C-alpha cells in the first residue's frame, strides 16, 4: 500500500468503525470488540506512516477542489504525525478504560457514545494531517460538532447547559474570529497552504500582524487562551473517558496543535521573532498559565481542577510557539505528547474514583489512596509528570521551554515557568497526600478494605502511567523528530 493510501485510511478506518459500532449496537460485547479492533487497526495504520515522515518525506493527498486554489488536502509533517500518533494510540487505551467506566457506571446510550467517539478521532486525525487552513478548519468544526453529543451525554439540565457553553464558545470563536482570519490570510497571500517558513512573511507587518495573530489565537478556541477558556470547565459534565481523551488529549491538543501549525507554517518563525507586534502572545500565554493555575487551586471538584490545570498546560504550548525559537517550538510540540500522557492518567484516575466510590469533590477524598492504592499511585505518577519532575516525561518539555525562553531573550518567562511548576505542586500533590496520609472517615483503626475500580479501568490507568515514564527516555527521539519543522524547508 502506498503511503497516500495509508493517509486516507487513517481518516476512513474510524468511520468504518463507526458504521460497525452502530450496526452492532444491540450486542454490547460485539460493539466493544469492534471499537477495540478499529482503534488498534487505526493506530497500526497511523504508525505505519511514521518511518516515511522520519526520513523526510512529506506525502500529500488532495481529495476535492472546493474553490479554485482551495483544496481539501492532507499533507503529513512531523508535528501532525506526532499528534495523530498520540490520538490514535491513546484511543486504544481509552477504549479499554471506557468499557470499564461506562459499564461500571451503567451509562445509557452507549452506542451513540462509541460512535461519536470514533467520529471525533477521525476528525482529530483530519486536523493532524490537514495540508491547509481550510482543511484544518473543516475538521476543526467536525470535531466540535461530533464531541457535542458526548459532552451532553447525560442529557441532564446541567449537561445541556454545559453543552450550550461548549458549542457556543467554540463555534462563535471559530466562525467569528478564525474564519475571518483565514479569509484575511487568503486575501493577503492567495494561498492557505501550510508552507515551511510561513506564507505571511513580507505580506503583513506591525499592528496588522498583531491583529491577525489575535484573530487566530482567540479564534482557535480549543487552545483555551484566556478569556476563551470557559468551555473547558463547562465540558467537564461529560463522562470521564470523554474528558480524558477529548478534553485532555484530542480537542485541546487540536487547539494548541493548530496554534503551532499557524505560527510555524503560516506566520513563519522569522516573522514571529522579528515582528514585535506579535509579542503580546507571550504575555497572554504567561498570564493564562499563571492565572489558570491559581484558579485550579480553588476548585474542589476534581475534574474542574484538572480542567483548569489543562488550561494552564495548554498555554505552555502556546508560549513555546509564541517565543518563536527552535527550542521553544520543539518544547511546545513535545509538551503536547508529554502532557497528553500525564493528563489522561489523571483523568482516568478521577473517573476511576467516581466509578468505585462516587466521589467527585477533593474534600471528600480523604484516605482514597488506602481504598484504591493502585489508582492513587498512578495519580501521583501522572501528577509528578505534569509538574515536571524527572524521571517523568513532563520534565523535558518544560526544560526545553525554559531554554527557548532564554534564547528568545525573555528571561522572566523562566521565572513564570518555575512559579507555575510550584503552583502545580500546590494544587496536584494535596490529592495523593490526603489519599495516602489520612484515614478514610468511619474506617476505624483496622486495615482499610481495598475497593478498586473495574479491571478494564485499572489496566488503562497503569498503561498511561507507565507511558509517562517511558516518554522520559524517548525525549531525544521526539526532539530529533520535531526539530526539522523549525528549520527552513521543513527538513524535507
Amino acid at each position, binding site marked *: 500500500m502506498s503511503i497516500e493510501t495509508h493517509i486516507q485510511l487513517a481518516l476512513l478506518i474510524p468511520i468504518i468503525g463507526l458504521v460497525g459500532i452502530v450496526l452492532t449496537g444491540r450486542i454490547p460485547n460485539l460493539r466493544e470488540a469492534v471499537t477495540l479492533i478499529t482503534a488498534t487497526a487505526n493506530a497500526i495504520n497511523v504508525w505505519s506512516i511514521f518511518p516515511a515522515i522520519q526520513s523526510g518525506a512529506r506525502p500529500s493527498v488532495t481529495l*476535492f*477542489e*472546493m*474553490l479554485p486554489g482551495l483544496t*481539501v488536502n492532507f499533507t503529513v509533517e512531523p508535528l501532525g504525525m506526532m499528534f495523530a500518533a498520540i490520538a490514535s494510540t491513546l484511543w486504544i487505551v481509552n477504549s479499554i478504560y471506557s468499557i470499564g467506566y461506562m459499564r461500571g457506571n451503567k451509562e445509557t446510550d452507549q452506542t451513540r457514545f462509541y460512535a461519536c467517539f470514533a467520529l471525533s478521532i477521525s476528525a482529530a486525525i483530519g486536523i493532524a494531517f490537514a495540508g491547509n487552513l*481550510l482543511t484544518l*478548519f*473543516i475538521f476543526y*468544526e467536525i470535531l466540535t*460538532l461530533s464531541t457535542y*453529543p458526548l459532552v*451532553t451525554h447525560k*442529557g441532564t439540565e446541567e449537561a*445541556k447547559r454545559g453543552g*450550550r457553553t461548549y*458549542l*457556543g464558545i467554540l*463555534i*462563535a470563536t471559530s*466562525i*467569528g474570529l478564525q*474564519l*475571518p482570519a483565514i*479569509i*484575511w490570510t*487568503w*486575501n493577503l497571500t492567495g494561498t492557505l497552504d501550510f508552507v515551511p517558513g510561513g506564507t505571511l512573511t513580507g505580506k503583513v507587518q506591525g499592528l496588522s500582524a498583531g491583529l491577525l495573530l489575535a484573530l487566530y489565537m482567540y479564534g482557535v478556541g480549543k487552545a483555551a487562551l484566556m478569556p476563551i477558556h470557559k468551555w473547558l470547565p463547562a465540558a467537564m459534565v461529560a463522562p470521564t473517558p470523554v474528558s480524558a481523551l477529548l478534553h485532555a488529549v484530542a480537542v485541546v491538543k487540536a487547539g494548541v496543535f493548530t496554534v503551532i501549525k499557524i505560527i510555524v507554517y503560516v506566520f513563519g518563525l522569522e516573522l514571529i521573532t522579528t515582528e514585535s507586534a506579535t509579542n503580546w502572545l507571550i504575555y497572554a500565554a504567561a498570564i493564562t498559565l499563571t492565572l489558570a493555575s491559581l484558579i485550579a487551586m480553588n476548585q474542589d471538584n476534581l475534574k474542574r481542577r484538572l480542567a483548569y490545570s489543562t488550561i494552564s498546560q495548554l498555554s505552555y504550548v502556546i508560549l513555546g510557539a509564541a517565543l518563536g525559537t527552535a527550542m521553544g517550538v520543539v518544547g511546545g510540540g513535545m509538551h503536547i505528547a508529554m502532557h497528553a500522557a500525564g493528563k489522561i492518567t489523571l483523568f482516568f484516575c478521577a473517573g476511576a474514583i467516581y466509578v468505585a466510590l462516587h466521589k467527585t469533590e477533593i474534600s471528600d477524598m480523604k484516605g482514597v489512596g488506602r481504598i484504591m492504592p493502585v489508582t492513587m499511585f498512578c495519580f501521583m505518577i501522572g501528577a509528578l509528570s505534569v509538574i515536571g519532575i524527572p524521571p517523568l516525561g513532563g520534565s523535558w518539555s518544560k526544560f526545553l521551554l525554559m531554554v527557548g525562553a532564554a534564547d528568545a531573550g525573555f528571561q522572566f518567562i523562566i521565572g513564570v515557568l518555575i512559579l507555575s511548576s510550584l503552583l502545580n505542586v500546590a494544587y496536584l500533590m494535596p490529592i495523593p497526600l490526603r489519599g495516602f496520609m489520612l484515614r478514610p472517615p468511619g474506617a476505624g483503626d483496622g486495615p482499610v478494605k481495598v475497593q478498586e475500580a473495574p479491571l478494564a479501568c485499572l489496566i488503562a490507568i497503569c498503561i498511561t502511567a507507565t507511558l509517562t515514564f517511558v516518554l522520559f527516555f524517548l525525549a531525544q527521539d521526539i526532539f530529533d523528530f520535531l526539530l526539522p519543522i523549525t528549520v527552513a524547508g521543513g527538513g524535507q
Partner: protein
Amino acid sequence: MSTAANAGFSLMANLPALQVVVPMIAAPICTFLRFRNGPWAFALLVSAATFWISVNLLMQVLGSGDISYEMGGWPPPFGIEYRVDTINAFVLLIVSGVSLITLPYALRSVEREVPRDKHHLFYAAWLLCLCGMLGITITGDAFNIFVFLEISSLSTYMLLASGRDPRALTAAFQYLVLGTLGATFILIGVGLLYIMTGTLNIIDLAERLGPVSDTTSVRAAAAFLTVGIALKFALFPAHFWLPNGYAYSPSAVGVFLSATATKVSIYVLLRFQFTIFGDIPAFAELDFATLLLPFAIMAFLVGSTVAIFQTDLKRLLAWSSIAQIGYMVAGIGLGGVDGLTAGIVHLFNHAVTKAALFMAAGAIFLRVGSMHIDKLAGIGKTMPFTTLAFVLAGLSLIGVPTTVGFISKWYLILAALQHGVTGYAIAALVLASSLLAVIYVWRIVEVAYFREPTANREVTEAPLSMLLPLWALTIGCFYFGLETGYSVDIARAAAQSLLGVTP
C-alpha cells in the same frame, strides 16, 4: 412556430418555446384528470419534461453560446424574443429542478393538507406557477416579463390559500395586495421605458436607452422597477407577507416557493439592473444595486434575529429565508464579479438548502400535526432520519465548511473585503448573522434531541416518498459544497456575462 419549425419540426431547436409551452398547456389538461393521483402523476411527468428541457438548454448555452429564439417567427424587436444566456439557463434549471424534486414529496403532503376534491386544481396551479416562473426567466421582452409575473403570482395566491389552515387565507390576501402593488410598479416602470424608447425587447431597450438615459422618466422607471421587484422577493422592509405565506400554506408549496419564487424575482432584478441599466453612464453615480445594500444588511440582521424568537418551525425557516435573501442582494449590491458570483451562486445554494429544510419541516408536520417548537420534543428519536437531515441542512444554513452555505459566504466575504473599511464592517455583520443562525438552528436541535417525547410518542418516521427527496437535497448540500465545479463556475460565467467582462 419559428421558421425552422416550418421547414420541419425540430425538437431541439424549439426547446426555448417548449420550456414554457409544455407546462402552460399541461395546466388546463390537469384540471380534467379527476381520478386518484392522476393530477399528481401528470404534473410529475410534465415537470420531468421541463427539467429535461432546462438541462438541454443549459448545455446548449454552455456549448455554443446564447440562444435567441423568435416566437412565431417574428424577428426582434418586433416579435417576442426568448433569449437564453448563462444566467437564465441556470435559473431555469433551478426552478424546474426544484419542481421535479418537490413533486414526489408533494404527494403525501397534499393528500393530507389539501381537500381531495381540489387536487386537480392544486396541481394545475402548480404547473401554471411553474410556467409563469420559467416564462419570466426565459423571455427577452420586458412586457412579457410582466405577463408571466402575473401568471405566476395569480397561481401563487391559489397555491398559498389551498391548504386547510384558515390563516393561509389572510396570508395569501396580504401577498395579493403587496404582489399587485409590486406588479403595478413593474408595469409602470416598463411603461415608462416603452414611452422613452418605443421598444420592449430587453437588448433593444439597453441600446436605445443611452441617448435618453439622463431624463427623469428613465430614473423614475428605474425606481419603480427596483421597488416593484424588491416587493416581489420580500426584501426588508417589504417582507412581512412571506412568513405567514410560507408557514400556513401546504408544506409542499412552502418548499416549492421558498426555493424558486424569490430566486426568479432576484433574477429579474439582475436582468434590469445589469442588462438594461448596466451600461448607462448616468446611472453610474446613482447605483440602484448599491442603494439596496443597506436594506440587504438590515434584511439578514433582522431576519436572523427574528428567526431566533419564532415558536413555529416553518415561520422560523421563513424568517431565515428573509435573511438569506439579504445575502443574495448584498452580493449583488457589493458588485464586481465576486459579489455577483456570491449573489448568483447563493440563488442555487439557498434553493437546495432551504428546500431541504422545508421538506424536513413538512415531513414533521405530516407526522406530528403541529409546527410549534415545543411539540417537536424528542423528534430526534421518533423521526431520526428526518431530524438528521434537518440538522445537516441546518449546518448549511449556518455556513459550515463543506456545505453549500459556506461557498456562498466565502464569496460574499471576499467580495466585501474589496470595499475597504465598509467592506470589513459588512464582512463582520455577515459573520455575526451566521452566528445568529447557529442559535436558531441549535434551538431546534436541543428540542429535538434532548427533550423527552411527550405527547407524540406514537410518531413514526416520514414516508419514503418524502425521505428520498429530502435526503437527495441534503446530500446535495454537501456534494455541491465540495464539488463546486457546476454551481460556482456557472455563477461566475453568469456574473461575467452580466457585467460584460470577458473571462
